[in-house]
């Protein structure tokens, strides 16, 4: 049962990913990513990370993707041309991608960590539920938690700075 779910989700995630890099039109790319995210959420659940899965769905598929959609709609995501200006890029990119995957996979599979081979230890039911995570966030990881909130604010400010009309008002007409 679990295996089936895993494979379905894995194929979903992978398919989504492939879709992202294969789709000409950014809009479809966004949709593909959403598929990918949902299947990841499933994988998280399989890994007993309920809260993470939930956050994944809410934050990403909810907020972030909407943002994407808006922007794509705003800038009119025209399909990019198939022409490749950088010599050798088309040839090297897949090669490197493959190499990367092989190396990482080897690193994992060749590792002497026995735990990698098992399903992981038995964990008590509370594992990964909001309460547990919450405790961690407020005790051990208080600083990162606060910092990331700070980071969010800065990012928001930055987005305003960049996207606000102010820039172009003074901008030289082209």
């Amino acid at each position, binding site marked *: 049962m679990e295996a089936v779910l895993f494979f379905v989700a894995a194929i979903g995630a992978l398919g989504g990913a492939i879709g992202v890099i294969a789709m000409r039109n950014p809009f479809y790319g966004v949709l593909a990513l959403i598929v990918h995210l949902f299947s990841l959420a499933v994988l998280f659940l399989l890994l007993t990370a309920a809260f993470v899965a939930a956050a994944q769905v809410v934050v990403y598929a909810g907020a972030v993707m909407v943002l994407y959609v808006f922007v794509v709609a705003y800038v009119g995501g025209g399909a990019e041309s198939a022409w490749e200006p950088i010599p050798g890029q088309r040839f090297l990119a897949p090669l490197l991608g493959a190499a990367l995957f092989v*190396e*990482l996979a*080897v*690193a*994992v599979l*060749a*590792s*002497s*960590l026995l735990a*990698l081979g098992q399903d992981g230890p038995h964990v008590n039911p*509370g594992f990964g539920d909001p*309460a*547990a995570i919450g*405790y961690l966030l*407020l*005790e*051990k*990881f*208080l*600083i*990162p938690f606060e*910092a*990331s909130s*700070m*980071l969010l*604010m*800065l*990012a928001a*400010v*930055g987005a*305003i*700075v*960049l996207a*606000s009309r*102010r*820039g*172009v008002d*003074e*901008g*030289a007409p082209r």
Partner: protein
Amino acid sequence: MTFHAPAMDYAALSPLIALTAGVCLVLLLPLLGRSRGSSGIAIQTSTALTLATLASAAGLLIWHWNDPTELVAGALRLDDLAISISLIAIAAAAFAVLLSVREPAAEQAGGGEYQALLLGSVLGMTLLAQAQNLVTFFVAIETLSIPLYILCATDLRRERSLESGLKYLIVGSLGSATLLYGMAFLYGGSGSTDFAGIAAGVGHAGLLSDPLVLVGIGMVAVGLAFKTSIAPFHQWTPDVYEGAPTPITSFMAVATKAAAFAVFVRFFDVALAPEAGDWQPALAVLAAATIAIGNVGALGQDSLKRLLGYSGVAQAGYILGGLVVASEAGVDALVFYLAGYLLMNLAAFGVVVARERETPFGDDIRAVRGLGRERPLLAWPLTISMLALAGMPATVGFIGKLYLIEALVEGDYTWLAVFIAVGSMISLAYYLRVVAAMWMRPGGEATAAPAIAGASPEADPIDPDAGRRWYLVAPALLAAAGAIFFGIIPQPLVEFAQHAGASLF
């Protein structure tokens, strides 16, 4: 489960708190100001406020000089290394804020946002310098990067600015993704996110040089090497340095390197010390490659910022040497060199900003032609900084190299020391080209063809006496004076560095 609130040592946290508060204030005050519709005042107030924040943060840091403390359940560690690095970052920020006065980018970004983002980046750096676990590490490094992505692009009217912002964002995020993935591996290998835990985990006999861990290390190295612009992960550096608003470039060049190297040292010389035998040769080779690439790349560059960018790459290579040897002397040398680098760089950038605003040449080398006769007060800082960067004696640059070479020879990396020597030999060719332009060329013909590197069509209005503005000249002079002073009386700086080193070993 019951909630155990972690022990909060507010005294030790105060620098971070000060900075955070500073960010908020700088953001808020001008809003009030702007509502009254006087953005000029707004900018001044925010500048003043930013400087005040930095000053207070610096003060609070110095207050904790020489008493290392663990903070918030071991998430942070406020020791002399952290303090010294944070101080360097803060100093760089202060200079950048001064240089940003009247900077078109700052004006477009509007009242407080520009300074706020700068402060945010500084906050990230101070955090990074103290980080003790992977999560803090990651968040901090993002907190310092993301504001910089934005700041690079803030000169919205100049295409180059936007381009640099986007490039930095893309490559940078790629870097952080790699970093993250590496962290994941290390976490998997050691089962902990704390540096201490990782040290214990990888030190554990079964895991010594386990592929999982090693590749993890490799990826973390890539991430950090990217931030410190080590070849071959350096390519963003020249472009971003050239495209970004010059004050930001000056800030990035020093502060980012400093912070990134701080955590680099912490992570590799402490947490990954058990694996040293594996990563040392790799990093040594990277350092050598960086020195070579940075120095030859800088040859024949006409844009001063770009030239400084490449030279920054080379300098990063030198500094990395201090890390490679994984010894206390190495860390001392590294911190010393960073401090010196701060002075040398700022002296140069102050002049570049001034000339950028006073001549139509932007940051092209022609902008400094005949500077020696026209503006001695600008020529001297730039000259000194060039000579110092080249490692000429009686400047802090010489002592810095001396320190590094000592550390390297002690750590049996003499060949790398020789490499540094050869590198600085090549570097003369371009540093002295600038000096020659200032002293051995007739004055820059002020009405020359506009199409020049650095001065894009949408060039900013020229301010004919920018070369006399105290907030540009004073910092440059100050830095240059420092570069000379610590070249002749280096002992204080040496002790400063040795404190930092001692806090690790």
